Every structure is written in C-alpha cells, then in structure tokens.
C-alpha cells in the first residue's frame, strides 16, 4: 500500500501538471539525446559543453534587446556567440602553440564569464534570467507559466514550443540520418560521395546550438551537457548498431523524464537536476549491466574463463 502511494504521489500532488512536467522534460531531452548520440560517435562530447557555455552571452544580449525569453532572436544571438567561440578557438590554437583543449577551455570559460557579467550589469535583478536560471533552469516553474489553448486543453506554452523544437529536430534527423551516419563513421568516404565534411560539421554544430538554446531555459547552461551526453553514452554501452542506439537514447530520455518527476516530488528537489540525476542512474545501470559493455558481464566472463582454464589444466594433467 505504501509503495502504491509513492507511485501515485506526483499525480496526487500535481494532477495534470505532472503530465506537463514529464512531457516538457521529455521534449527537452529527446532532441538533445539524438544530437548527443552523434556527438558521442564523433568524439565531440565536450563540444556540447563548450557550446552550452559559450552561447550564453549571445542569449543575454538578445534577451536584453528583445525582453522576451521565447523570442527567436535568442537563437540567433546564441548562434552568433557559438560561432564566435569557434572562431576564438581556431584563432588561439592555429596561431599559437596552445593546444586545442586549452584553447577550448580558455574560450568557453571567457564567454561564459562574459555572459554572467553582462547579465548582472544589463539585466540586474531580472526574474526571468538570473544566476538561478543559469544553474537550475526554469523547468520547475513550468506550471506557473502562461498557458495556451491546444486541442481544447490548457497547455503551458513552453511545452508547445518545445514540442515544436523536438518535432523539427526529429524531422531534420530523419531527412539527414544517412548522411550524418556516414560522415560520423567515415568522413573520407562521405567526402568521396560529395558530402563536404566542413558543411556537415557546421550544420551539425548549428543544430546542436539550436537544441542547446531551446533546452537552455528549461534546464540551465550546465545541466544541458548531461542531457546531450548521458542518453547517447548509455545507449552506446548497450548496442553496436546505430538505429538501436538512437532508439535507446530516446528511451533513456523518456525514462529520465518520468524518473525525474518522481525524484522531484519525492525529494522536493529541483526538477531539472532530478531529470539529470535519474539519467545518471540509468547510465550507471548501463555501465554495470549493459548487454555489450556491461562491467558485470565482463567480470563474470573473466571468472568463467579462469575456471575454464583451471579445468583445462586439470584435464590435461
């Protein structure tokens, strides 16, 4: 009986609001999980980190000008800031002997610091965009946001916007899946088919920036990295094939959204962080029990083969 109470708790407390929270978390996590899977395959996981930090000043400036967190100009500003950080990284590591990793570190910390300083100077004590929002995101405030009528339901507006972003990303992915797969595994072969590596790289970075900015408001600048990397990494440990990997990553996003809601309600903790922690637990499970790379299976197999060796020796003697 107690157990059942725990399970129904979110729905008792939040009612239909729980559904909106889960949907919102899922719509944020889904596009991130798909783009993140490709980042993992391309060994560019930390590019997500760099992008999510460096788009921040662009978002702040665009928000200062438009005064609206839902404005599409935020994406333009973020895109420009992201481009600027790429240019900075190139400028540092092409022209000096500072290596790529340090160049990346210098540029994204500098841009993030600039973003924070600009935010404090320009916006002051703004309730929509402040340090709390950068760290925690606004996911937990979802139920207090404006609502719009959708299919006869009072749906919080951000859910509809984010659903649009998720749908757009999935369509894009469906269209370019083959190209991206090919170029992720073999850039040279893709180039020989006429897909220019630079074009693919920059379009992908653009889509990642787009997704990051869209997710930014919901989960903040730093937790976004988790949504990008965790699903893909967990799925990567469970399969050798790309399609199952993408599906598993989406599943990871869905379970994290649900699990995040439960953690949020059970522990009365921040929703965005709860989603990520749930994703982290799922990753831990994949690490230990994943059918392909699970540490436990490897360990058992080692034990097993040792036993076999011993028995072989015994038989041979």
């Amino acid at each position: 009986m107690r157990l059942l109470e725990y399970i129904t708790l979110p729905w008792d407390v939040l009612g239909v609001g729980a559904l909106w929270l889960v949907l919102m978390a899922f719509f944020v996590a889904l596009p991130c999980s798909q783009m993140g899977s490709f980042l993992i395959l391309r060994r560019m996981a930390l590019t997500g980190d760099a992008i999510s930090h460096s788009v921040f000043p662009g978002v702040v400036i665009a928000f200062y000008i438009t005064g609206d967190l839902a404005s599409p100009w935020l994406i333009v500003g973020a895109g420009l800031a992201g481009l600027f950080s790429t240019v900075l990284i190139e400028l540092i590591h092409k022209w000096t002997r500072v290596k790529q990793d340090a160049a990346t570190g210098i540029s994204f910390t500098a841009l993030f610091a600039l973003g924070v300083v600009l935010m404090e100077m320009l916006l002051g004590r703004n309730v929509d965009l402040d340090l709390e929002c950068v760290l925690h995101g606004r996911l937990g405030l979802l139920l207090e946001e404006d609502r719009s009528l959708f299919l006869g339901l009072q749906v919080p507006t951000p859910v509809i916007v984010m659903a649009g972003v998720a749908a757009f990303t999935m369509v894009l992915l469906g269209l370019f899946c083959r190209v991206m797969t090919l170029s992720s595994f073999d850039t040279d072969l893709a180039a020989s088919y006429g897909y220019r590596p630079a074009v693919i790289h920059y379009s992908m970075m653009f889509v990642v920036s787009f997704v990051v900015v869209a997710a930014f408001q919901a989960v903040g600048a730093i937790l976004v990295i988790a949504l990008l990397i965790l699903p893909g990494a967990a799925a990567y440990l469970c399969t050798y094939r790309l399609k199952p990997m993408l599906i598993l990553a989406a599943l990871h996003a869905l379970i994290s959204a649900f699990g995040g809601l439960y953690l949020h309600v059970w522990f009365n903790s921040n929703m965005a962080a709860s989603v990520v922690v749930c994703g982290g637990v799922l990753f831990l499970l994949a690490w230990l029990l994943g059918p392909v790379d699970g540490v436990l299976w490897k360990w058992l197999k080692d034990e097993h083969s040792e036993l076999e060796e011993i028995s072989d020796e015994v038989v041979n003697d």
Partner: protein
Amino acid sequence: MSLLASVVDLLIPGSGSGKAILAAVLLGAGCGLLGCFVVLRRVALMGDAVSHAVLPGVVAGLIYSSERSPGVIFLFAALAGLLGAGLVRLMMVSTRLKSDAALGIVLATFFAFGIMWQSRNQQDTVGVMNFLFGNIGSIDASDLRMMLMTTLMLVVTMFFLRRPLLMMSFDEGFSRGLGYPVRVLNGVFYFLLTFSVVVALQAVGVVLVSAMLITPAAAAYLLTDRFERMMLLSVLFGVASGITGGLVSAEVNGLPTGPVIALCATALFGIIYLLAPRHGVLSKVMRTIRRRMRVRRENMLKAIYQIHEGEGFAHEEVSVLMLARKRGQTEENVIKDCKALLNRGFIEMAEDGVSLHLSRLGWKRAMEIVRNHRLWELYLTNEADYAEDHVHEDAEKIEHILEPGIVRLLEQHLNFPELDPHGKPIPQPSHLVAQPPVSI
C-alpha cells in the same frame, strides 16, 4: 600541527581587503602551479570536470557541518573531486567510451547531483552561490587558514615531485622506462589538481575554476620555453587577475567574483596572445611579412641575374621595362620593388631612372640564389630521382632557405658541379672577386 596552525595564523591579515588579497595570492599560486601541468599534459578539460564534480562535496559540507567549518567543506569537496576523477579513469578503462564522453558524464552528473541536493536543503545551503560563482569578500580567517595550509601542502609536494611530474607531462612512456612509478604519480597529480580546485573554490566558484587552471598557464606558456619560468609567470598572472577581479567585483554591487576574475585572466591572455615576443601573433605576423618581403627581393635579384645571363652578360644595365616583362608585373610595381633593393644596397639606379645595375653586394646575393636553385634542382634529379621537369617548383621554395653550410654539403655531395640539369651553368659567388661575370 597546532604549532603550524599558529604560524599560519600570523600570516593572515586583519583587514578585509588584506584577506581578499591573500586569497587571490593563494588562488593564483594553487591554480597557477597545477595549471602549468594541466596545459602541458593537455588535460584542460579534466580540470573542468574535476572542478564541477566537487559541487556535491561542497553541498554535503554545507549541510553536515553545523558551523560550516571550512575544513569539513574542503574535505568533502576534495573527496567528491577525487571520486569524479577516479570514475572518469574507471569509465575509460572499462568501456568503449572515450575520454571526452567520460569527462562530460562525470562533470554533468556530479553537478546535477549537487544542484539536486542543494535545492532540497535550501535553508542549510544559503551560501552555496559563493561557492558556485565565487565571492572573494566572503572569505574569512578560518577559510584563509584552510586555504593557506592546503596551498602550502601543494607547493611543498610540487617542489619535491616537480621533476618526475614534469617528465611525465612530456613523455609518460619514457618516465616509466626511467623507473618512475607513473601510476602513483598520476594519482598524486589528480590529488593535487583536486586540492588546487578546492583552494580556489570560494574565490572563483565551481563553474569558472577551470578558467584559473587554464588561462594563466596558457598565457605563461606563450612567454617562455623554460618550465620554472612558466610556473612563476603562471602564478603571477593568476595572482594579478585574482586581485584585479576581486577589486572590480567589490566595486560593482552584486557582481560575483568568479566571472570577473576569469575575464581579467582572459584579458591578460589576450594581451600576451597578441604581444608575446616569440609566440605572440603580432610577432608571428611580422616575421611572415618580413620573410615574404625578403623572398620578393630575392626573386627580383634572380630575375635581374637571369636577364643578364640571357644576354650573355653583354650589357651592364637592365631596364625596368625588361624586368617588368620578366617578372610579369606592372612597371610601377617593379619600381616599388627596386626601391626596396636600392635601400638595401643591392642595386644602383642609372641617372635616367628607368634602368639599373647590380651592386657588388647585389651580384653576390643574386648569384647565391641562382646557385641555390640550380644546385637543388641537380640534387633532386641526381639523388632523389625526380624528373627534370618536376624540380623547378621545389627549388623555387628552397632557394631562399638554404644555409651556407648546407650549400657546401650539397656541393661536396654533387662533386662541385658546373651545370644544372637543364644545362645552365651554376654560378660561383665565391669567384666574384677573381673573375666578375661582367666588368663593373
């Protein structure tokens, strides 16, 4: 231990600004020293991961120490950081995931766990913003005592281990060959890294500590080739940006210290990036421009020589028009180039202003360039089995670079040849005094 503590207490200043300056010095020292290794070992993003991973430790420290003693916070933060670094290592050896994914996972999950825990215990963790974005003004005497002792430990350990750690940063395999316990040293390195992050926490904050690890050290790396000097400069830059950032953020109300310090460090890096004497961008650009101009001058001299050669050294002077035709340039451009040659004393203009002749110096340099070109062509055809019609482009480039020593070797190697592969004579600048090709 209590003796050490009382000695340490003597160093802690009473005034608020004195405390802030001491904090900045400690921050610069801790992060600056470790940062040098971070930059050289190319583990900049490991610094980022460790610094984010300490957050749950900070939160635990804030919750579980009733009077928020800095010792407990330091301890928990360091434990969390070490656990994060260990997990990264474990993930890399036990799965197919590469370092980037492992770092990202640890960074983000630990950070999220910290945020989740903090959001659940908001009344116990009021000061957490100071640890996230830094607040140098909030550092009090007990924090400083802890920071001082940790930094002291860092500096002493670094002093004794600097050689093996440095060796390992450049070549891990070689240091293993020398018998250093590489595994243990790696552990020690991450241990020290975590502690330097912890020292910097209250001044800069979790989110931007990695800027203090990377940026001052990278700036120092552009200024010197010697490791001791790099460490010194890196500490100096860290301290300077710490003090400046602390002062600026104190002036502006509500501005967290960390971002300002990070921006100061970046500004310093930017200045050095542009102006560093050897590795700076401006000096590199200047060097490139100077080299291009020299190549241009030398090509001009070569053209003059070739015109003379084409005429069988019959005339003393070459006209600007002929040069323009030979070089495929307009006359104005040729005159501009001639000015550069004139300034260097390679040529003398005739009185009519449209023809010129080479000075002795000019003859020597022109002959050297043509000799280098033809020697190299011969070397490529004879020794490297190039086809005769493929050697010209290569020689066009190398003629400007060959040093006298290499030229002498080439001559010896080719047995002092007189003709190049196309049958043209190889000039001998050293014979210039005895038998000038044309009577000047």
